[in-house]
């Protein structure tokens, strides 16, 4: 989805799993564009899309309800397969930590995250969007045989890659806790250190052990047809369901950065945040800053849960302060240790110790976004070669190339994890291009796709400049320039000119 972000003031694109995209494709709907706000803004509305029509109706009964209530109501109204996009109460209240949630194949939720996209939906008074999953035609292919052939090559590339084929389905994205911690790049205690004392307690290996002992599942596809299955179902000690889609960013934000050492407690918060529809990174980093503001103690998961459940959900003054996200909380309390770029919270990779990723944070038109150009791959994970994470050399070029490629791959609707086989297997990306050509009857080549990525990135940058952002917004928070990060003692040492060189392409 795309919008202007109320958090960053710039452009925002966000991607999600779930069932809605596939169903829209089957309906032949390429995009749903929603402009303006309703004249009668005294209530919220529900938009229902079918093959032949779009229906808009007031849903006063859903006002003030959270995501699972809306999901249940829609499943009852239509059928179990109906695609649902929804916002919870924080989205109704236009909070900057709010996401748009999407129903997944098991009836749980995935999120369009970052940038306060839920607030945008709330501002338009749209409580939910549903897409009919019964009366549609199947997707047609310009060259079905060619598509099948290319799809086989692409599938094989994903399945044979050790990351997308083995690591992710075994340990989930949370496999990253240990390696990022070892590299000294796991932001902890509101970005005071690159190591966390909680790493072993919250890591992917521990999570996988718990799942093995308690039941649940290490594999789960967030959308139909997924062949990576990085998601999971996580149960408590009694074997009762706690949460699903339990991701690295969530576990890092509440485990390392906010300091909760109990994985189950983080899982409970995750489930609550799914229901409320608030962003894992933005909310977790906000709690880290809230500690410095004196609002809560590090590691007090019980209180964090309470604040989310009672204050944020009800829009109390404290709830609004947390819901206003880390950058604004920092300003309210006069803090300088506020880890944001373009007012958006920095994700689970310390820019001082993983410098290529830092370049992505500062230059991405999205604000601090790890998915826009995942330099961690080459800085830490030895995917696409290796560039020393602590040195400046090669990082701007690395981030630029990754951001161009990511913009192109994102626009195909593919999952970000395609990047791992794409970086290491020369057959992967050409097969994806062949699939696009076979589906639409186009004749794209690799240069076309690279140019597509370049054009997207430049258009996004242009949008931001016209929205009033400048190169002064392409910077890390100042404390990272004078405060070293243990244990590597790394510092942010790029000059402004070195950063601005990014846009010379």
């Amino acid at each position, binding site marked *: 989805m795309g919008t202007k972000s109320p958090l960053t003031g710039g452009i925002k694109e966000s991607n999600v799993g779930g069932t809605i995209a596939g169903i829209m494709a089957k309906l032949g709907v390429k995009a749903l564009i929603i402009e303006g706000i309703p004249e009668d803004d005294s209530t919220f509305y529900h938009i229902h899309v079918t093959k032949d029509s779009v229906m808009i109706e007031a849903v006063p009964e859903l006002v003030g309800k959270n995501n699972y209530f809306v999901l249940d109501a829609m499943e009852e109204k239509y059928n179990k397969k109906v695609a649902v996009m929804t916002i919870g109460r924080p989205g109704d209240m236009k909070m900057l930590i709010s996401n748009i949630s999407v129903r997944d194949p098991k009836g749980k939720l995935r999120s369009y995250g970052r940038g306060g996209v839920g607030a945008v939906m709330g501002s338009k008074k749209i409580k939910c969007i549903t897409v009919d999953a019964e009366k549609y035609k199947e997707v047609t292919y310009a060259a079905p045989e060619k598509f099948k052939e290319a799809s086989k090559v692409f599938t094989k590339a994903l399945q044979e890659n*050790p*990351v*997308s084929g*083995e*690591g*992710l389905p*075994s*340990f*989930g*994205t*949370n*496999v*990253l806790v*240990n*390696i990022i911690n*070892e*590299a*000294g790049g796991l932001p902890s205690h509101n970005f005071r250190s690159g190591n966390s004392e909680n790493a*072993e307690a919250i890591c*992917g*290996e521990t999570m996988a052990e718990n799942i093995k002992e308690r039941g649940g599942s290490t594999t789960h596809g967030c959308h139909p047809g997924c062949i990576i299955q*990085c998601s999971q179902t996580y149960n408590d000690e009694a074997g009762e369901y706690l949460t699903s889609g339990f991701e*690295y960013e969530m576990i890092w934000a509440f485990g390392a950065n906010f300091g909760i050492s109990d994985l189950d407690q983080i899982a409970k918060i995750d489930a609550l945040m799914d229901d409320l529809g608030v962003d894992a990174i933005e909310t977790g980093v906000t709690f880290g800053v809230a500690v410095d503001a004196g609002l809560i103690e590090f590691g007090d998961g019980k209180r964090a849960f309470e604040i989310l459940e009672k204050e944020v959900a009800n829009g109390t003054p404290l709830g609004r302060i947390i819901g206003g996200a880390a950058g604004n909380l920092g300003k309210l309390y006069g803090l300088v240790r506020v880890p944001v770029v373009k007012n958006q919270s920095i994700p689970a990779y310390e820019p001082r110790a993983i410098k290529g990723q830092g370049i992505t944070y500062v230059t991405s038109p999205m604000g601090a976004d*790890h*998915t826009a150009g*995942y330099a*961690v*791959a080459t800085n*830490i*994970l*030895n*995917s696409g070669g*290796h560039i*020393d994470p*602590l040195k400046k050399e090669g990082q701007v070029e690395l981030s630029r190339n990754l951001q161009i490629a990511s913009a192109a791959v994102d626009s195909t609707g593919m999952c*970000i*994890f395609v990047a*791992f086989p794409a970086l290491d297997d020369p057959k992967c990306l050409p097969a994806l291009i062949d699939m696009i050509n076979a589906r639409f009857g186009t004749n794209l080549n690799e240069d076309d796709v690279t140019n597509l990525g370049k054009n997207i990135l430049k258009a996004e940058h242009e949008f931001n400049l016209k929205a009033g952002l400048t190169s002064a917004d392409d910077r890390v928070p100042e404390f990272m320039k004078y405060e070293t990060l243990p*244990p*590597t003692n790394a510092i942010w040492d790029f000059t402004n000119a070195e950063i601005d060189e990014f846009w010379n392409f």
Partner: protein
Amino acid sequence: MEEMINITIKLFAQYREGKFKVEKRSYIKNSTIKNVLDDIGLDLGKHPIGILMVAGRHAEEEYVLQNEQVLAIFPKVGGG
């Protein structure tokens, strides 16, 4: 008697299966990471080496280990 060095070895992801999380072992001075890998006997056919780190910095198999260093061994991992 040959001079020995102590190395703390950390294993991650699939490498922990049937092995250990962290262990301290002694090796002859001038041992390389490769010597340690041979000693541990990981199933590298099934899960090839992804990332090696000594004291939190990336290293190659030929790296000569020093006394009391920490060696972290990862298969290829990733996420986001």
